[in-house]
């Protein structure tokens, strides 16, 4: 489903990603963890080319991405890859259902009724069917993030990317969002999740990547990586979290 080969990215002289190589197969849920500034979010954003990179290739859903990929190919790829942001980024001038139907209606020219029927199904899935006509400012942070997940799912993507989806939320709101993500994962969605939630990494993920200084320091099953980390970076990182 995804294969990353020798991916490198520089910000001026600083190397943000160094020669990253990794593969993800269909149905996997990858938790991406590690100290801040290590390149977790950058790697995730390279996967749908929201962040351009200098060297290497990314293959995702059958599209090969690189600096010379034409804009139309990128747009087509992005309709197959959903993304959820830390700050939700809902469109404040549209209500929940319009936020969800906007992209399918304009990128796939889907008709209004069909798009709205599916949007209501998705809202049902995230437990917000009764808030379909609410505007973002009328929703709590947790509700907004669940609408954002429904919005990302509206184009029926093959892969979902989550960039710290619960970091901006209060603890009691995180559980609702986590619940939605867990259901998605067990439903067979291919997911990559940048997160600080060790519970999620441990219980839901099929694999955990520990990223530090632009490389994947450790890659393995959660019980191996979280409970018995092999690398110094991972040991130090999990030890600090447990304190």
């Amino acid at each position: 489903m995804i294969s990353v080969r020798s991916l490198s990215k520089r910000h001026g002289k600083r190397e943000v990603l160094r020669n990253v190589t990794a593969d993800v197969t269909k149905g996997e849920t990858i938790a991406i963890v590690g100290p801040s500034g290590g390149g977790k979010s950058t790697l995730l954003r390279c996967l749908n080319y929201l962040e351009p990179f200098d060297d290497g290739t990314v293959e995702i859903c059958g599209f090969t991405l690189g600096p010379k990929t034409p804009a139309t190919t990128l747009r087509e790829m992005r309709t197959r890859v959903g993304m959820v942001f830390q700050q939700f980024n809902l469109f404040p001038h549209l209500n929940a259902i319009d936020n969800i139907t906007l992209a399918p209606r304009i990128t796939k020219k889907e008709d209004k009724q069909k798009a709205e029927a599916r949007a209501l199904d998705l809202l049902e899935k995230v437990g917000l069917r009764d808030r379909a006509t609410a505007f973002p400012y009328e929703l709590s942070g947790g509700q907004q993030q669940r609408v954002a997940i429904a919005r990302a799912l509206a184009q029926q993507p093959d892969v979902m990317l989550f960039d710290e989806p619960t970091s901006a939320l209060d603890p009691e709101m995180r559980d609702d969002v986590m619940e939605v993500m867990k259901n998605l994962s067990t439903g067979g969605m291919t997911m990559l999740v940048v997160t600080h939630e060790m519970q999620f990494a441990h219980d839901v993920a099929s694999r955990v990547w520990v990223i530090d200084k632009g490389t994947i320091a450790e890659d393995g099953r959660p019980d191996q990586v979280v409970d018995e980390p092999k690398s110094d970076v991972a040991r130090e990182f999990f030890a600090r979290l447990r304190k």
Partner: protein
Amino acid sequence: MSQWYRAVVIRVVVLLWVSLALGLGCGHQDAAPDTTLAGIKQRGEITWGADLQGGEPYVYENPSNDKEITGFEVDIMDAVAKRLGVKARMVQYTWSTLVPSLERGDFDIVMNGLENTAERRDRILLSDPYYVYAETLTVRKGDPVRSIFELRGKRVGTLNQTVAHDILLMLPVEPLVYEDNDAPYKDLAIGREDAVLLDNIIADRYGCKDPALRCLPNDVARGTYVVGIRKGDVSLKKAIDAALADMRKSGELEQILRKYELWDDRQREADLGVGVTRPPRTFDLAMFWQFCQAAWVTLEISLAAFLLAVPLGMLLAIMRVYGNGFARAAARVYIEMFRGTPVLLQLFVLYYGISKLINLGPMEAAIIGLGLNYAAYEAEVYRGALLAIPRGQTEAARAMGMSPWQTLRHVMIPQALRLALPPMTNDFVSLLKDSSLVSVITVIELTKRMTIAAVDLRGWLVAGIACALFYLVLSFPLSELARRLERRLARDQRPITL
């Protein structure tokens, strides 16, 4: 804002306007005591108001020495002052405000092609004449018109607040009102109007010499130029009349007029008075209707100009924020050019400057001129609004596979317009008032109607208040509409308590 609060605000605004107008109006009412002549003698100087824009041969800057002011009226004034035993000094004022400025006491007398009319006789003292003029009709060569009575329904140009204008108002023609001598003839030559009626002095110099134009041989009317003196200054009038009589007797007046090639047989004839006398008007239903029509013109121009300014401004803002180097530079040049020069200048260039290339009608020129100008302001408002939208919005749209255009159309522009609504309302109200500038290109809108009415009513007070009320009536519903729109579109932007 609750209903009663709004009503109070309106009442206070109106009251302020009325009291302001009354305060300004008071000065005009009482005739000054007869002290001006004594003051002149004491100072050793008589000041006279005139407008250099009237041009050759009245009062104008000497082409070979621009510090020196010359003209037949300068020579006559010098000769009059010599007889009073003082020096004369010209003071520059806009022609159409000469009489009110005289009444305010800004200078001692007016001498600038001031015609002897009933309105002026009512309002100020007028001296004996120093020149007999004729109203001359100018048409295009090849046009078989023989008299002004053949011009029914046609467009005839003239200057504001002249006898010629009064004559045109009594005829079944459509008068076009200009502010300078040259423009009416240029517009006649390119077909924007069918004839021009103006004093023979102006016609001879600016119109009859144009190979495309022809002046009719018969005078439409005759009148005289006189000196304007404040009411009450009876001894000053006597002194000036005596000086003029002496100049006539000694032949000095004839000499001066010959020097400027103004001497003709008309000067030998007795004072003919004026061909036209229009009685003063009151603010009646007909005048109210004229104000309504002018208000409609103002509204029409403002709305159309704004409809042009909004999309063009948005395009410029998008070019500046998202465009490549060339687009950014082009948008910046446009904005600096239109924001950095007076809109009045832009209107002149658009209407007169390029008339040989594109012959725009006055309404079109007004709408395009104001629209292009305001687009520059709107562009910066929208640029600020676009920059105020969080980056995450664009990222979300891109991550969903929207093209740049789709992102603009569905995500950025709707949000930018919400943010820009308060400054846009500001700009629209400002445009409503700036539309008064288009009177320089012959459009009669509210402010122009006010200045015309002020002459008919023999005072600025009533006309001024009426004009102010019309502007408020136009702008208030619009700001109210904007307020409601804001409430509907920007529900999440309500402030929280500080």
